[in-house]
């Protein structure tokens, strides 16, 4: 059995933690992007309809509802994050 120092183990853990953290940030950034894209799609369809484009009514409305749902999701997640943050703040160290 080789005697390996603990250092490489720590390094490995640090690497894993780093990737996990950025994993979350990345995921969240992707999510934000997606919400933004949905808003932009709804805005684009609204503009197109105002300009007189050939979009059926139901398609426009479904896009609007999707954007609204995405926004709701974002707001709720933000609320949860704020709650979590406040809870952490309240914790006695």
């Amino acid at each position, binding site marked *: 059995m080789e005697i390996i120092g603990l250092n490489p183990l720590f390094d490995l853990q640090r690497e894993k933690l780093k990737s996990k953290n950025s994993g979350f940030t990345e995921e969240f950034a992707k999510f934000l992007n997606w919400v933004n894209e949905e808003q932009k799609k709804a805005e684009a369809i609204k503009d197109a*309809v105002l300009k*007189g*484009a*050939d*979009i*059926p*009514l*139901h398609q426009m*409305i*479904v896009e*609007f*509802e999707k954007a609204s749902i995405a926004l709701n999701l974002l707001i709720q997640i933000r609320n949860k994050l704020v709650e979590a943050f406040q809870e952490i703040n309240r914790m006695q160290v």
Partner: protein
Amino acid sequence: MNDLFRTFNISAGGMYAQRIRMNVVASNLANYESYRANGEPYRKLEVVFEAIERPEFISRGEIPVRVAQIRFSDEPFRLVYDPNDPRANAEGYVQKPNVDLVKEMVDMITAIRSYEANLNAFITTKEMAQRTLELWR
């Protein structure tokens, strides 16, 4: 929104065409025994409907109808045997307007039925649009 308006216009155009047709029938019936100033009998009017089949519209499923022409019919005049009539010709026949009462009545009934069908379709479209808006809160 244009899509919705064009959809309404299909049915509206249909109603309009049928109404013109009803007007024409009414004229023909009213002039069943009329003569022109030059002595010629009244020539009945006929409507020609035409479907507007443009490729960019057909691919969207829209084929409106329009009244292509309102024209005088060139069917021959009715000949009625009445030697005592001042207008009678050498053989004793009088030329009368080329209006066929039965055909006009059938035309009128068909026009009314088609008009109502288009009206129902229009109302259906309106209700569908309203339901769609209700989707949106």
